[in-house]
């Protein structure tokens, strides 16, 4: 069953077409990967879905409900959460307080939110660092914290923008294991990723963007051998 339907979405910045007439469906419970060279419009597409940008044309429906024109906080309340490519921690408050802000999306009681936040920090292995101000965490932990905050809003669909970029191999493996755990808990994931190895092992299905247009869609093994994709990444002289 498709929970998110994107139809013919386009977003322009002046003369640049950042996202061009993109269609996509996200199935319940899957991990959908989104890849593409730099500047191919991945983050712009994310911003359109989460309400940070308003696309010029097309439609975005979540469980049949129109998402166009909703504010980012409205979309979060409907059950779609996201993380940012460049981490945006609430740097002056503690890691725990960061996650409490997320949990307050579903409750008005700070005490309830605190319990929820501690459960999530425990789940993500951050409990030992929860009293530190967010700015004092390492980049890997700040990325985890972003994930924790987003999860605290109890999303049905979670959009992750490059969670493993900048992590070392060990941290990457931990992060991937974590994402699978999140998938098992019943959250659908839509993941932008630059690290090919990571996305190939993680995703059930992959969509490839190039110059804002969708050029391929399919299982990771199909994508790896797709000539259009290889051309987009390496140039036409590498065609097999």
């Amino acid at each position, binding site marked *: 069953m498709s929970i998110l339907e994107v139809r013919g979405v386009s977003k322009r910045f002046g003369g640049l077409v950042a996202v061009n007439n993109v269609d996509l469906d996200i199935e319940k419970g899957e991990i959908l990967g989104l890849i593409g060279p730099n500047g191919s419009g991945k983050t712009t597409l994310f911003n359109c879905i989460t309400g940070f940008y308003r696309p010029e044309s097309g439609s975005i429906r979540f469980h049949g409900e129109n998402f166009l024109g909703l504010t980012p906080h409205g979309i*979060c309340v409907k059950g779609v959460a996201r993380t940012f490519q460049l981490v945006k921690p*609430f740097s002056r408050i503690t890691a725990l307080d960061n996650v409490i*802000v997320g949990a307050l999306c579903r409750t008005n009681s700070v005490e309830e939110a605190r319990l929820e936040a501690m459960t999530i920090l425990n789940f993500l292995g951050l409990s030992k660092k929860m009293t530190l101000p967010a700015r004092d965490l390492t980049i890997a932990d700040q990325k985890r914290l972003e994930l924790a905050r987003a999860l605290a809003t109890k999303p049905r669909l979670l959009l992750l923008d490059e969670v493993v970029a900048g992590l070392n191999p060990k941290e990457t493996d931990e992060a991937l294991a974590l994402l699978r755990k999140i998938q098992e808990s019943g959250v659908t994931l839509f993941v932008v990723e630059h690290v090919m190895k990571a996305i190939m092992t993680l995703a059930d299905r992959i969509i490839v963007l190039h110059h804002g247009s969708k050029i391929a869609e399919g299982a990771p093994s199909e994508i790896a051998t797709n000539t259009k994709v290889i051309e987009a990444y390496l140039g036409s002289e590498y065609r097999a």
Partner: protein
Amino acid sequence: MIVEVPGKISKLSSPKYYFALILVIITALLPLALNPFQVHVLVLVYLYAILAESWNIIGGYAGQGSFLNAAFFGITAYASSLLFILYGLSPWIGMFVGAFFSVLLALGAGYLCFRFGLKGHFFFLASIGITVAIQRVFINWYWPVNGDLVGGAYGIWVPVIKGDSFYHFQFRGKLPYYYIALAMLLAELYIAYRIQNSKFGYYFNAIRDDEDAAESLGVNTLKYKIIAFAISAALTAPAGTFYAQYFLFIDPFTVLTDMLSIEMVVVAVVGGMGTIFGPVIGAMILQPMMEYVRAFLGARRGLDLIITGFIIIVIATLRPRGFIKWFEDGYNYVVKQLPTMHLGGERKHVHSGS
């Protein structure tokens, strides 16, 4: 192992709480040992602490550098004074009317500024612009009283009544003002404490640190910024009425000036923005200093401001987060030396783990 199970009253058995209570009692008894000038200085300390504490809600917690707070102060000073002169209404009631108009102004100005995404320097400029516009309106606004005109650039003298009257908010001596200011400040601190530990406090801090991230976590940033502004306005209002009743004279150049907003910001920043006691500490440091410099070197106008400016530079270099940390450390040190008292709590035997 015997542990103390805290009951409602027995919270006070911890030095952290009873030492705070002792400080409040000392503050309450303090004026009995001071001369009137010293009491006057303390009244001003509390007044500025209230103003900075209110500014702290929008400027410190929510991170929106408002320069409009002087307008909330001035509007309330005018509202309570005018209602008293024109209709004989108690300034206490006028205070609430003033607070009502201040909140209305905060809602309107807040919506206009935040709806169109003004932040940082632009919000600062817009809020200063609105303050100046309101000041101009009051400079040119006269009210007829018994065939005479009051207000405008001349300002307003609050009519002096005979004797002390709580209803009219007028007293001969300074002591009643002292206790009213102290009570207002304590109420303000309590409200700030409640806000900090509520959903509002968390959302305000989130907005201050990163608006996009806050939005993505379901925080309606527009709504919560306006709420922070309205709370700040409502909390500033009582200080306006207090000022008018304490000095019995107001004019647009003293109660509606952007200088007043700057002072609120400076007090909060020196003490520690975004903390509950920071503004109080800022007021405790700056206000006596300015008053004494003014009293001793009165003829050389502006010297107090030069010295204040110098101290701000020193603070910006040494303590960018304000003096609050030193005071917190001092407080915690004293608390550690004090014994725990046994009051009303139950003692229970508990099996320890190992």
